[in-house]
């Protein structure tokens, strides 16, 4: 399916929950509301026309007014790709986990939590993965200030 068709299918199934779509961009994407993210992902995973069984990338991005979680989905069977974005407020970004749909989301979400502070509700083991467990701050945020010391060691 071409991106335009996928965008149309998404709009048809979820209507108002889709905030914005851009299937003509170099990388076709749609933004959905955080509350319906899990439903949309499940739809993409299970619907036989879409069959997105491969979660290629789950990452965060910090735009000054919001934090975005990007889900790049791919289907091994139909060979098509689509991106879902979820816009979260910077104060307490939280969204439901998609671990039950794709097992690899477990580690990807831990990394997004580590780097941006996004809390994934329902995650089985949400703790930092790259930084030490007792690190303070979320490094990849644009307003991150590097600490001067860690456990009395100068950073």
């Amino acid at each position, binding site marked *: 399916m071409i991106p335009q068709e996928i965008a149309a299918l998404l709009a048809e199934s979820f209507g108002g929950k889709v905030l914005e779509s851009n299937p003509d961009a170099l990388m076709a994407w749609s933004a959905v509301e955080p509350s319906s993210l899990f439903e949309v992902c499940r739809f993409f995973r299970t619907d036989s026309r879409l069959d997105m069984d*491969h979660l290629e990338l789950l990452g965060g991005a910090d735009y000054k007014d919001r934090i975005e979680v990007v889900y790049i989905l791919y289907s091994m069977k139909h060979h098509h790709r689509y991106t879902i974005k979820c816009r979260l407020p910077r104060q307490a970004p939280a969204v439901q986990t998609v671990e039950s749909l*794709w097992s690899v989301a477990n580690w990807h979400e831990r990394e997004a939590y580590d780097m941006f502070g996004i809390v994934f509700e329902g995650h089985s083991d949400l703790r930092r993965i790259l930084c030490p467990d007792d690190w303070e701050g979320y490094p990849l945020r644009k307003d991150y200030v590097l600490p001067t010391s860690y456990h009395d060691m100068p950073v």
Partner: protein
Amino acid sequence: MTLNMGPQHPSTHGVLRLELKTDGEIVADAIPHIGYLHRCFEKHAENIEYPGVIPFTDRMDYCAAMNMELGYVLAIEKLMDIRINNRVRCLRIIMAELGRIASHLIAAGTYGNDIGSFTPFLWCFRDRETILDLFEETCGARLLYNYNWIGGLMYDVKPGFEKKVLEFLDYFEPQVDNLNRLLSDNVIFIRRTAHVGILPPELAISYGVTGPNLRGSGVAFDVRRDEPYLGYEDFDFDVAVGKADYGPLGSCWDRYMVRIREVRESCKIVRQAIARLTPGDVHESVPKRVKPPAGEIYMRTECPRGELGYYIVSDGSTKPYRVKVKSPCFTVMSAFREVSRGAMIADIIAILGSFDIVLGEIDR
């Protein structure tokens, strides 16, 4: 008993900490702890101009640096809509495939070392030295190159390069048979690896495993076939898949053997690329200033360890806004805990070696 295969260990292919909960020799749970080699690549990339990020990409998977650079450079070129000429294309393919051979030789050699046979390690590294000499002659570096530039290459190859590459291939292809006789078809090696670490294909896809690890489970998925880049669709090569020659499909032996088969396929590709090499200027399409239009892109390439993905967000300036790397070793390590349940300690090493991880890529 909780045994720590700590960050310093001869067999963990880098600084990885495995927390093993053992019951005698059987491992009930193996929890990987990563982050010891985290160098904040993604944060650095936001503060440097686009061409300056290329040496940083080298240092992620330092065993296959050519392929790391390639993914990043292709992403930026797609964003800026730069066309490269045939010479750059063929040289990039030659370098990428030679890098693939070098990386798989490391994988095979160190895997033999983990299983206890030290000799294949030295044979593989001996053969790898010739490839590194070729790289050194071309761009001055043996391991970390900064060779693939946005729109072209750093240097053109020296005269006589094609002849040396063909000589190497003529010497090397029989060496793969030697390696098979010594290691791959050795009864002890097969008994240690062919019934161990079974990764079923559905589990592999759910965990996002790609590359030789996925192909070892029988799924014939290769980015160079599925979404060809650099003109790979014109090249004649087979996708190496695990065939369960010994033991069930998806075992450690299958994954290892896929790498050996891929080495042969890479030799074929390099020969074809050399035949198609035409004269040209490698700096022809290199832009004076790299300033991509605002937008985002996701580009994936087949690096020796799997499918490497670059998600780059550009805000129209000379520095990237966000660079996110999807590292194939990261996804395969997330599957490690489930695959290694119930194995013995010696099997943990076998499974880890068959996944062929490089911590630089996992931690970035």
